[in-house]
């Protein structure tokens, strides 16, 4: 099958075309993600990789490309790349080569970047993306390779000079290249989120886009469905999910407009201007780049053993897809709930601790609705949650053994969240136990009935709906502690309903 036919076969039946003036257009997207490897030291030098810091403080003489300096590879970065490849179900290439990519720029002190061109460390793999409609899109990974990051230039400090900080120069990056299997801006962000989740599960990249740990270059082209592939443009260095969506949407419209007016797309590199909300041609990088790749003679080919790769494979954690499947089959959760819980490894582990020996669906509900809700509002994360998994679990126990009603449990949870106190302590100190004593409930009901004879009469005359009012009043008088079910039953009994 030709590449054309494969595209059409895989995606022809999907909807989501963009309507243009001359008909529908299909959006073809591929992404190159640069993910910073989580490591203490840089790829070829022993300088630290910490974010921030004074300029040129995290720089070794090797990073600064002083005369006579030489690269020495960090074995952990190699392992991280292999780990990532395994997480992407990809082929690990036991032999790979580092090539020099030659060009001049002040943030590239060597005048070349050490990368991998011909023989990357990881080959083909895939990422499964769960679509909102319940389906799954498979985005194929073409390759993953290791390369050095460049430094940073500040252009706005001076009219004619730039300020260069080489702290980031030499940090290990994994470049993850997808096939052009993505068909919409939404899919692109879902793909990136899934990729980010996988990397975070593996511990190979923290996925912190604000700090630049993960950036995406997006290749965008459009075509008439079933038609030949269009010319693509590359949008470089987009560093937030929101901008990725906006950039793709803008670029798609831009290209469609040009084509519908009978023009042609010029293959070029563009930047997303987040202020103006548009993509702009990078005119200065317009000159054809001849990178003159050749194997770096300061390094030897990287040779891995299958045994070593297998050791790493054994140490992989359970990955999101497998975990999600297990949550669905093992805990009986819905696909949607399972997705939410596995989005983060810490969240999944939190949930499982809560669910252990308890009703999993109730646990899932509490984590997703109550805990997530509170965390989001307070701007906290699972890691900084004031309510631990054990504490939440014990709250659910109090609910299960009827010590608390569901309403009381919510109240106790709120207090737990604010105070960090244990649920038992809160219940004891505030006497928040559910009232399940029928005598007490009867007494409370009698009191309200006695105080409101007119309402009693109304109910007796047929206004059943006023029962709700009685429920409210009894709840108020018992400080919300009356067991709702028992209260309802008792009320009905008293009214003879």
């Amino acid at each position, binding site marked *: 099958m030709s590449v054309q036919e494969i595209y059409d076969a895989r995606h022809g039946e999907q909807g989501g075309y963009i309507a243009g003036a001359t008909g529908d257009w299909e959006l073809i997207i591929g992404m190159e993600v640069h993910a910073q490897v989580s490591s203490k030291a840089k790829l070829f030098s022993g300088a630290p990789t910490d974010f921030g810091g004074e300029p040129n403080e995290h720089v070794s003489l090797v990073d600064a*490309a002083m*005369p006579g300096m030489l690269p020495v590879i960090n074995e952990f970065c190699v392992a991280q790349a292999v780990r990532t490849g395994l997480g992407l179900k990809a082929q690990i290439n036991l032999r790979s080569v580092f090539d020099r990519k030659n060009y001049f720029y002040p943030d590239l002190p060597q005048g070349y970047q050490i990368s991998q061109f011909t023989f990357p460390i990881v080959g083909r793999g895939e990422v499964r993306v769960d679509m909102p409609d319940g389906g799954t899109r498979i985005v194929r990974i073409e390759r993953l390779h290791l390369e050095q990051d460049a430094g940073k230039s500040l252009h706005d400090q001076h009219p004619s000079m730039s300020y260069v900080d080489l702290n980031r120069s030499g940090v290990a990056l994994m470049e993850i290249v997808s096939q052009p299997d993505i068909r919409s801006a939404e899919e692109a962000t879902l793909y990136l989120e899934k990729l980010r989740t996988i990397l975070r599960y593996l511990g190979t990249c923290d996925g912190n886009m604000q700090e630049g740990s993960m950036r995406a270059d997006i290749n965008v082209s459009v075509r008439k469905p079933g038609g030949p592939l269009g010319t693509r443009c590359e949008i470089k260095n987009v560093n937030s999910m929101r901008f990725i969506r906006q950039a793709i949407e803008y670029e798609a419209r831009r290209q469609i407009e040009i084509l519908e007016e009978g023009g042609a797309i010029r293959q070029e590199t563009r930047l997303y201007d987040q202020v103006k909300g548009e993509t702009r041609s990078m005119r200065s990088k317009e000159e054809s780049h001849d990178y*003159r790749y050749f194997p770096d003679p*300061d390094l030897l080919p990287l040779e891995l053993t299958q045994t070593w790769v297998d050791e790493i494979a054994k140490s992989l954690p359970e990955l999101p897809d497998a975990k999600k499947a297990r949550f669905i089959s093992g805990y009986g959760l819905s696909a949607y709930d399972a997705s939410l819980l596995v989005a983060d490894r810490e969240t999944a582990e939190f949930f499982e601790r809560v669910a252990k020996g308890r009703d999993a669906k109730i646990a899932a509900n509490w984590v997703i609705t109550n805990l997530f809700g509170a965390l989001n509002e307070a701007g906290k994360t699972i890691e900084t949650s004031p309510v631990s998994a054990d504490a939440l679990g014990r709250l659910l126990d109090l609910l299960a053994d009827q010590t608390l009603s569901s309403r009381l449990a919510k109240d106790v949870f709120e207090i737990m969240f604010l105070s960090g106190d244990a649920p038992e302590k809160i219940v004891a100190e505030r006497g928040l136990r559910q009232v399940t004593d029928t005598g007490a409930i009867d007494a409370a009901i009698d009191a309200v009935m006695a105080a409101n004879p007119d309402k009693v009469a109304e109910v007796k005359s047929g206004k059943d709906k006023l029962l709700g009012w009685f429920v409210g009043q009894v709840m108020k008088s018992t400080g919300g502690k009356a067991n709702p079910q028992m209260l309802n039953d008792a009320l009905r009994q008293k009214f003879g309903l």
Partner: protein
Amino acid sequence: MTDLTELSLAQARDGLRAKKFSALELTDAYLAAMAAARVLNCYITETPERAREMARTSDSRIASGKAGALEGIPLGIKDLFCTKDVLSTAASHILDGFKPAYESTVTTNLWREGAVMLGKLNLDEFAMGSSNETSYYGPVINPWRRTGDTAKLVPGGSSGGSSAAIAAHLCVAATGTDTGGSIRQPAAFTGIVGLKPTYGRCSRWGIVAFASSLDQAGPMARTVRDTAILLGVMAGHDPKDSTSVDRPVPDYEAALTGDIKGMRIGIPAEYRVDGMPAGIEAMWSRGANWLRDAGAEIVEISLPHTRYALPAYYIVAPAEASSNLARYDGMRFGLRVAGKDLTDTYEKSRSAGFGAEVKRRILIGTYVLSAGYYDAYYLRAQRVRTLIANDFKAAFEKVDAILTPATPSPAFAIGARNEDPIGMFLNDVFTVPANLAGLPGISVPAGLSEDGLPLGLQLLGKAFDEETLLRVAGVLEDAAAFTARPAQWWRA
């Protein structure tokens, strides 16, 4: 008192240990000789204060019985090695004012063993050349002259400053680097000994890189023994250099047993090039006879791809150099010539900073790596390289060392070969194959040409078998009994 500069390294070492003279006296003798020989232009930077301070330290170490292997020995350092806080130029304008905050591994080894630094020696710019005529700091004059002639001759290159300084007794010994012959060829042109170790034997960390897969630091000295002593200190694994090999360093001096009985010495047919001067052919045969007389077996061998070594070298070396020299851009160190913007500044700085030969090689290198030409030139040359290495592997199944002339001619006049780049390249015809194959080679003075200029014989060895190389070289040296010295016409 005897002129202390007459002593070889071994003699000076023994003399210092026997306290016949002090390290300071020895250093002062050399400083005086250097001051009187500036016309030769061997040194780019002299470091007399540092030298005397190091010598004083050596004297106290000798006194307390803590002498290192090179304690108190005054050395010259080719100005391709970065030396901490001392101007390091690579003989280029583009490294104006560059004083590194770090020391190369090889020189660190030397200072650790107590050697004394006299200064930084002149060389071809960025080690690109075979005559030391491309230096920003001017050419080096060979202390040797043709009989009855005052024409200035080249000392060879790129380690021309090193070779001339040793020949003129302006240092006991020196470091050089050899990428295509830059130690062996100048050694032959100046009647001294020069050794290029196996690739990976010495660390390249802190040495300005020319062609990474070919560069190798090595010792240059008056005698084979001196060379062996110096190699023992320079060599060794360096974890900061990924191409440095982790193998123990043998006692090279102990290898000089003088006994080569039963050794097989190869004579490669392809090194008999057209138009080779009769004197060189004759010297080569004489050398073979000396070794036969010492009990070795002479074996005719074939290295079929020899003639392709030079063209392959002139593709691979410039290609690597074009990339290695990209960091000389005026942004972080060295010369910056301000332009109207970034690109203009790059171009102005590099064009003003690099000499013509360097620019030519950068252009060739950029071209052969560029899109569309990479396969045809660079990859092809790297394949030829494999063939050349395979030739040697096959030959070394039959022989223990290979004997060849070091150069196709003796030293020539300054300016004589400037119009003819290929002619200049041919100086390295015998030395380049060893660099391509990563094998060790040594040049030993073997005799004089018709007009009284030194000629050298080269020995090539198996990988990491510098011991055999030195042993055979020692036998050659004894047989040649080369005692000729240049007349000291340069002393003011």
